[in-house]
């Protein structure tokens, strides 16, 4: 089959496009990927945070952070180039 895809190359190709980041806990972030570093700390533009409501963890709260954020790569678990499909 085709040559294997390098994970960080796939992320690099996604710069400028929507991305969906799934963290180690229940938090997720979407937005436009502006860049990342060796530790996969990530800069996201027009960021939107999805996290469980502390008072009702079965509900997800969507917070439009807007602007550019620096997301610490420590708890980044999964990255989905292309962003999240809205239901």
């Amino acid at each position, binding site marked *: 089959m085709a040559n*294997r895809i*390098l994970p960080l190359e*796939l*992320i690099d190709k996604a710069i400028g496009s929507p991305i969906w980041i799934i963290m180690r806990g229940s938090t997720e972030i979407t937005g436009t990927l502006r860049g990342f570093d060796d530790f996969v700390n990530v800069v996201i533009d027009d960021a939107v945070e999805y996290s469980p409501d502390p008072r009702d963890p079965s509900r997800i709260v969507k917070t439009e952070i807007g602007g550019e954020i620096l997301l610490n790569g420590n708890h980044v678990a*999964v990255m989905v180039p292309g962003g999240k499909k809205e239901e």
Partner: protein
Amino acid sequence: RGGGGGGPKKESILELAKLTDAPVRVKCLGGRELKGKLRGYDELVNLVLDDCEEFLRDPEDQTKVTDKTRKLGLVVVRGTQVSLVSPEDGLEEIANPFIGEED
């Protein structure tokens, strides 16, 4: 100093080359479980999974994983968060061998 390291680069005990294009199951730190086709990897065990699905956890008990999944598509899994990678074909559930064990 004891321990390994300082030897030839790119040596891994996990032969991901063999699993390329195969369906794999990946468990993450924190309890997430994923499955997908392994399309790529690097020496830090960052992975590229195609047609990836995440197993959803029981809303009442987040430590229990259900059969329900959500589709993610082509994803990158961070090697720092990976706790297990195994071929899907190689998995078979057996009776708990530890029950009733003394000591």
